[in-house]
């Protein structure tokens, strides 16, 4: 407690140190994964990471804010197509500046990801502005409709390959930029971002909207603006996941982003717990792993998912973790106490 009375030590050196250590550890882990694990397991890890981004992002709108999007596959598609397209367009320019190599690849990839996230966020804004003035279940059906419209547009966009999909206009397909390091780098960035929003004043307002929109409005909470903000942010994270997904394979097709994909995302957050970041992350991992385990039961996957949804809603509608968080809170509290002493 004594620390609270004296002048506060600046915290940024500690944070910068933690960030540098994390990146170094992640890089080392990436090398380890590449050397030590077979490609099949690596791929599951990548999918799990992408799922975590999807689930944590969707949870901001579906869990924390209590609105309901069932068309997030559409935003993922916008991110995937934009990232792939922008990456292919700017790669030569970046290479002419930095020379071709892993640095140029990293710059290209991350620039393209940011543009993809921006476009997905923009799509979220366009969808959210009209529909978020309305109550939750209308929003659900509008997002569903928009998800379909986005897919239909990609299906007909000839410069993006139409129904056969986009492979960067080359026989080799899209470059495989997506690696363990970049996926989990973005996992950390997205979780950090969503965590900071959730536990800020804005986050409290979002929870207030979920709990009682009318009361929140009466307390002068700008409900529509905050809902649109949360929705845009959520769409942007789905865009990042889409970009990572796109560069994991040679090409993307409109049918990669069907309604099924949105359902996968909903299963992730409902299994984990609506309104819990760590729950959503666990749900994302659960879906990635269970999909692999059920590979032989592929045809029954959606039957089982549907049953899972119904049973969870009937038995434990708040999800397995509910709104609780698994956290390192106790760990940091311990550190803080040592510092004080």
């Amino acid at each position, binding site marked *: 407690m004594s620390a609270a009375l004296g002048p506060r030590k600046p915290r940024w050196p500690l944070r910068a140190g933690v960030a540098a250590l994390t990146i170094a550890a992640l890089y080392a882990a990436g090398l380890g994964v590449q050397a030590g694990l077979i490609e099949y397991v690596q791929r599951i890890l990548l999918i799990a990471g992408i799922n975590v981004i999807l689930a944590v992002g969707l949870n901001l709108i579906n869990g924390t804010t209590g609105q309901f999007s069932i068309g997030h596959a559409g935003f993922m598609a916008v991110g995937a197509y934009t990232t792939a397209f922008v990456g292919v367009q700017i790669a030569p320019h970046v290479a002419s500046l930095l020379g071709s190599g892993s640095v140029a690849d990293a710059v290209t990839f991350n620039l393209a990801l940011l543009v993809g996230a921006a476009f997905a966020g923009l799509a979220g804004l366009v969808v959210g502005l009209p529909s978020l003035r309305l109550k939750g279940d209308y929003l659900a059906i509008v997002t569903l*409709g928009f998800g379909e419209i986005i897919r239909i547009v990609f299906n007909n966009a000839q410069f993006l390959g139409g129904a056969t999909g986009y492979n960067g206009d080359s026989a080799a397909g899209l470059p495989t930029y997506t690696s363990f390091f970049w996926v989990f780098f973005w996992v950390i960035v997205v979780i950090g971002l969503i965590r900071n929003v959730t536990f800020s004043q804005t986050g409290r307002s979002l929870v207030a909207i979920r709990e009682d929109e009318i009361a929140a409005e009466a307390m002068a909470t700008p409900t529509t603006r905050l809902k649109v903000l949360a929705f845009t942010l959520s769409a942007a994270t789905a865009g990042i996941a889409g970009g990572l997904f796109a560069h994991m394979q040679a090409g993307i097709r409109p049918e990669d982003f069907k309604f099924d994909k949105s359902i996968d995302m909903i299963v992730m957050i409902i299994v984990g717990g609506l309104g819990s970041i760590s729950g959503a992350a666990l749900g994302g991992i659960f879906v990635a792993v269970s999909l692999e385990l059920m590979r032989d039961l592929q045809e029954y996957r959606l*039957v089982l998912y*549907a049953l899972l*949804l*119904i049973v969870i809603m009937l038995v434990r509608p708040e999800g397995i973790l509910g709104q609780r968080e698994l956290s390192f809170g106790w760990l940091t509290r311990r550190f803080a106490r040592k510092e004080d002493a």
Partner: protein
Amino acid sequence: MSEFFQQIINGLSLGSIYALIALGYTMVYGILKLINFAHGEVFMVGAYGGYFIATALGVDGYEASGAGFPLLLALVVLVAAMALSAALGVTIEALAYRPVRSAPRLTPLITAIGVSLFLQNVAMRLFTPNPRRYPAILRELRFELGGVIITNIKLAIFVVAIGLMVGLQQFVQRTWTGRAMRALSLNMDAARLMGIDVNRTIRATFAVGSALAAAGGILFGLDQITINPLMGVLTGMKAFVAAVLGGIGNIPGAVVGGLLIGLAEQLTAGYLSPDYRDAITFVILVVILVAKPEGLLGVVRQEKV
């Protein structure tokens, strides 16, 4: 000009199918404030029910006997499929929706999505994902009227749909059950205090709505010639948009909305591009939600705090 009228005819017959399905959405929403996502699947099961009953009764593809399929048997198929779907609707309500009726609104919504997915995928396994050719319950006859082709099937769709809608209107306005439904949609607690059996009335709502969807399914099969297990997804969504367009909870509104959606879809396909026939519905949805969220015939209800 005759092409324009042709599109209008096609649009009206498609629209009356949407209207039949939209009625189920609007009735359930009016009472439970629930978007019954599984309604599109009830429609699909109705179509398959008609398919199997007709096949069992001896209609085999398009090689129906020269006399055509007797009208009476066609009616039997229709009524049997409607009964089947009504039973399905009531079962869904009892197993999935009743336990979560008093939960926050998102819980029943997610349950409904789950039921919808479940039925789709069970249907894919049971009926195979391949499209099936619908039996010729009615033998097609063509009339030409000033360059516009009208088939007896389109006429029958229109007549059956209008007949059922008028019947529904009478049912809701004149019978005790219908009156109980209207009371529930106004205020469920007050209705319960007045001695209305809430469970029974909700059951009746699901039965009637599902039966209408099954009729829509059979007419859809006749009109579009093939059916598949996923036919309920897009059609159901369009019908829901029709209900919103007309003013959700409002029965005449659902009919008007259905006809307008059908027309809009056909005209888009005819004059803009067939690629965007499905997208136009959602454009309409967004426009109506922004401009007049209570729908064309809906009334603004003040929110009580």
